[in-house]
C-alpha cells in the first residue's frame, strides 16, 4: 500500500517542484536587465573607501591615540598622512591592522600593538623603514 502510494506520489512531487521553480528561473533579475550597476556590485568593487573608514576607526580608538600622543605625534598628522595614501597603500595598511589582535589589557597584546605603533610613527618620522606605505 505504502509502496504503491510512493510510486504515484514521487513523479507527481517532482513535476510540482519543477513547475514551481520555473517562474523563478524565468524572471529577469531586476536591475541587470536595465544595465544599471547595482549598489552591491559598486560596493564590492570599491573596497578602498571602506578600508579608509576602517583605518579612521582604528585611529579614533582612545588606546591608539594615547600611543600616538606618547610618541609625540599628533593625530592630525597621521590622519593627513593616511588621506595622502593611494588606494593600494590603504589596502595594505588595512590588512596589517586586520592582523593585529583587537585585545586590550594583555601584556603581550599591548606590547605587539605598541611595537606596531612605534614603528609606524618612527617610519613617518623617517627614522625607520618597516612599512612601505609610509614612504
Amino acid at each position, binding site marked *: 500500500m505504502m509502496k504503491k502510494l510512493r510510486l504515484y506520489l514521487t513523479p507527481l512531487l517532482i513535476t510540482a517542484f519543477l513547475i514551481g521553480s520555473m517562474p523563478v528561473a524565468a524572471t529577469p533579475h531586476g536591475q541587470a536587465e536595465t544595465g544599471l*550597476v547595482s549598489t*552591491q556590485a559598486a560596493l564590492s568593487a570599491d573596497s578602498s573607501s571602506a578600508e579608509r573608514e576602517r583605518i579612521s576607526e582604528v585611529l579614533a580608538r582612545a588606546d591608539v591615540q594615547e600611543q600616538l600622543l606618547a610618541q609625540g605625534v599628533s593625530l592630525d598628522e597621521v590622519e593627513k598622512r593616511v588621506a595622502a595614501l593611494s588606494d593600494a597603500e590603504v589596502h595594505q595598511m588595512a590588512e596589517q591592522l586586520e592582523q593585529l589582535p583587537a585585545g586590550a589589557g594583555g601584556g603581550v597584546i599591548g606590547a605587539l600593538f605598541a611595537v606596531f605603533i612605534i614603528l609606524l610613527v618612527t617610519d613617518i618620522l623617517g627614522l625607520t623603514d618597516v612599512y612601505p606605505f609610509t614612504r
Partner: protein
Amino acid sequence: MPFCLFYARSAGVLLLMSLLLGCAASPRLNDSTLNNLPPGDLLKEVPFYAQRDYQCGPASLAMVLNAAGVNVEMENLIPQVFIPGRKGSVQSEMLATVRRHGMIPFPIEGSLDALLTQLASGQPVVVLQNLALPVWPMWHYAVAIGYDLPTRTLTLHSGEISNHEMSLSRFDATWARSERWGFTIMSPGSVPEAIRPFRAIEAISTFESVQGVQAALPSWKALVNTHPDSAMGHFALGNAHYAVGEIKKSRQALEQAVLLDESLGVAWLNLGLIERQLNNDVEARRALSRAAALTGPWQTKAQETLNTL
C-alpha cells in the same frame, strides 16, 4: 564557534576566570565620549528572557527584537539561529535572523566609545563575549542595556541574570576577545546615530538584497539625511529610486552623488544610463564620458555604452 555559557556547569570555572582576569587594565575612553555622553543610562524598556541551556543567541535576539517592537517569541527564534551540534549560534546567522524579521542589523564599531554612544542614544546592543580565555573559549551573547561612568560599569541582560552589572574593564576584556563584535538593530527608515557611513551603507545594502528595494528605500533616505556628504549613500539611494520606477528622483540622487564626489565613476555611469533611457543624448554622452575617463572597474562598460550612442 560561538556557544553559550551554561551557568550551572561552569560557575566554578567562571569564578576562577574572574580571579585571573581581575587584574585587567582599565580601558581608555575618548575625551569626546566622556564630555559628550550623559554620565549614565539604563534602557529599562528592554525585556529580559533567561536563556535555557546554551541558547543565549536566541534569547539575546528576542530581547532586542521585542524592544524594537517586533512580536516574536524566543521559542520561535531557537530553530532559526541555534545550531544544536555546536551548542550555539554563529554571528552571521544572528544578523540574518534579524533581517528575516524585517529589521536591519548594524554591526557597530569595535570600541567601548561606540558601544556607550549607542546606549546613550537609546539603542540596546547585542555583544559577543568570550568569557574565558582565547585558548579555551567560552563564547556568549548578551545584550548591553546601560552604563554608568562614575562607577565605570556596564549593565547587561546576560544568560540567566537580568541587569547584570559588570565593571567596564572586565567587560572590555571579555569583549575584546571577540574583536569587540556587536550590533544594534533598526527598523527600515532609521539609521543609528554615530555609525560611519560605509558601515551603514553595507548594512542597508545587505538588508536590501534579502528584503528587497521597496523595504530598504526608507533607510536609504534616512542615510542621506544623516550623512548628506556621503556620495556612495546618494548613489545607493539613486539605485533604489530607479528600481521602484522613480526615475526622476533617481537621476536627482545620482547627480548629487557626482556633485559630492566627481571621481565616483560608477555614479557617472548609472547617471549616463538613465539619461540615455530618458533620451537625453547630450546629458547621457556627458555623464558617460566622465565615467569613461576614470580608471577603474566601470571604465570599459562606460566606454562601450558611449559607443552605442
